[in-house]
């Protein structure tokens, strides 16, 4: 008994050291990218990757872990983006404050929408969120306070207080840090009781309820949390594009679905998923647009659709699953050696 433990302990410590090393290297690389690559486009691709890591991870909490199909996350991105745009414009407050205000608003909205709707199951919830997204879109289009369909432009006046920077490096680091923060948060959640409970809810609500988990309460909590974090992504979004209008976030709830896809492609209910998803999808979209864009007639979106079908049919566990398989193989080999 003890011997095994000691053995595994040793193995674990070895793993740990390797892991620490790997993380260190990866962080280092990502940290020096702006220095080694002075190509703004590449940086901007990375910034988008980081933003979508935030959004995807946030969706993953409600969609992946809890298994509730929320299709209104574009609304929460919009909340974040608009609060970033509105604060300086109307109140002369620095958009940095949006990092606090936006999540609060988003959380409230998220709670308000999810508390009643999460009583419904499966596609009922999906449909309601979809409809909610549509209504919000139309309301934003006719809401004079936020300049309706015309949208809000954030003038390009670089300054720290305005959270606008003349070079993309700082934006890169900002989004990088936020993304890293999100990942850490979701790693903690994944390991926490909450993560476990949400997974159990996803698998069998009745059984979870029977085990003494208040399913509805946890679902609503997950949605609220998810909404809040999504809005943080929205703030960066606005500060980077420097322009917000309702169509950008809510037209045909395309963004909501895009966010969900990031998590799905990567792998649902895993910390790794959205990260992989973002690192694959965003560059892919960039380059397909460059390649197929010339063909016009939305050919790239045709491909996009096919890809979605294929994923849904043959690959529902996403990229993370494959990584795990490879990992298991390696592990197996390792054990084989050790014995």
């Amino acid at each position, binding site marked *: 008994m003890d011997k095994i433990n000691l053995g595994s302990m040793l193995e674990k410590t070895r793993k740990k050291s390797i892991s620490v090393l790997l993380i260190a290297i990866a962080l280092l690389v990502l940290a020096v990218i702006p220095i080694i690559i002075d190509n703004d486009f590449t940086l901007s691709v990375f910034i988008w990757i980081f933003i979508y890591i935030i959004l995807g991870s946030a969706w993953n909490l409600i969609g992946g872990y809890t298994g509730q199909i929320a299709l209104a996350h574009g609304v929460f991105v919009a909340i974040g983006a608009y609060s970033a745009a509105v604060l300086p414009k109307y109140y002369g407050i620095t958009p940095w404050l949006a990092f606090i205000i936006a999540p609060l608003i988003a959380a409230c909205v998220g709670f308000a929408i999810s508390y009643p709707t999460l009583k419904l199951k499966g596609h009922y919830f999906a449909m309601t969120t979809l409809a909610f997204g549509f209504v919000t879109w139309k309301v934003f289009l006719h809401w004079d306070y936020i300049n309706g369909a015309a949208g809000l432009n954030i003038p390009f006046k670089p300054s720290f207080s305005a959270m606008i920077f003349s070079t993309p490096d700082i934006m890169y680091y900002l989004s990088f840090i936020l993304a890293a923060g999100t990942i850490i948060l979701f790693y903690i959640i994944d390991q926490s009781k909450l993560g476990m409970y949400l997974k159990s809810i996803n698998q069998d609500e009745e*059984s979870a*309820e029977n085990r*003494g988990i208040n399913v509805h309460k946890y679902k609503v909590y997950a949605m609220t949390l998810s909404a809040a974090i999504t809005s943080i992504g929205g703030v960066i979004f606005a500060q980077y594009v420097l322009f917000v209008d309702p169509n950008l976030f809510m037209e045909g709830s395309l963004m909501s679905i895009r966010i969900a896809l990031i998590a799905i492609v990567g792998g649902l209910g895993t910390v790794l998923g959205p990260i992989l998803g973002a690192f694959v999808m965003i560059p892919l979209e960039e380059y397909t647009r460059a390649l197929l864009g010339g063909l016009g007639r939305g050919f790239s979106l045709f491909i996009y659709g096919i890809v979605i079908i294929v994923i849904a049919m043959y690959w529902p566990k996403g990229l993370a699953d494959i990584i795990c398989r490879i990992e298991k193989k390696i592990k197996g080999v390792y054990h084989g050696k050790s014995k």
Partner: protein
Amino acid sequence: MANRNNDVSNTTIKVQNQEDNKILQIHQLTKRFGGLTALNKVNMHVKKSEILGLIGPNGSGKTTLFNCVTGFYKPDGGQIIFRGEDTTGKRPSDIAKLGISRSFQITRPFDELTVFENMLISQSHKNESIVGTTYTRFDDTTREKADELLKFVEIYKLRDHKAAEISFGQRKLLELACTLMQDPEMVMLDEPTAGVNPTLINKIVDDIVRANEKFGTTFLIIEHNMNVIMGISHRMYVLASGEVLREGTPEEVRNDPKVLEAYFGD
């Protein structure tokens, strides 16, 4: 044990003339589905630390009764009092928190999670703050307890297998262990030995008895296997078409013509 202290703190409402050793009291419980009456004015009680058998032909309302007690069905009439607290129409999770744990007829562990994780989730959720769960992990006492119980039902070796990977009988044992995980006042088992091979049946029976002796846990068991139920239960109720047909010791029940008729008649 832990639940003993909770016991003191939790006993709030005292229902009049409640004998202290009655842990669960069911008054006039009625449940209808559209036309048919699944439960008709059922009266019964469970004494502390007893093993109570609940038998009856198919469709006699046994599982319906379970679902009413655990809050999955809202009863159409009557009252359920658990440890002096009226639990009628409460949320299943709240009832579970009060110390009733229940196993399903068809086992329902979380297939994607490992056996060990299944155990952890089944821990008691008493006074657990939802926000707190965001950053807290399962503490060592819980983990040790989970291991203890896994050892207790002797599936410790499967600890890190996904629940989907283990055999049917092992799932039964897992469910049993899960129900014991949350220091329950009362465990409700729905056909714990259905579809289990004889050796494992003995094991399960043995586990139940041991749990009852070791932790003084109260058991309320639905069972079709007469030998098993007669063997372990201290007292029995017989349900037939939604009504209590007979109450008494296994011997009394065994020798009651009405019961035989209910089972084998027509």
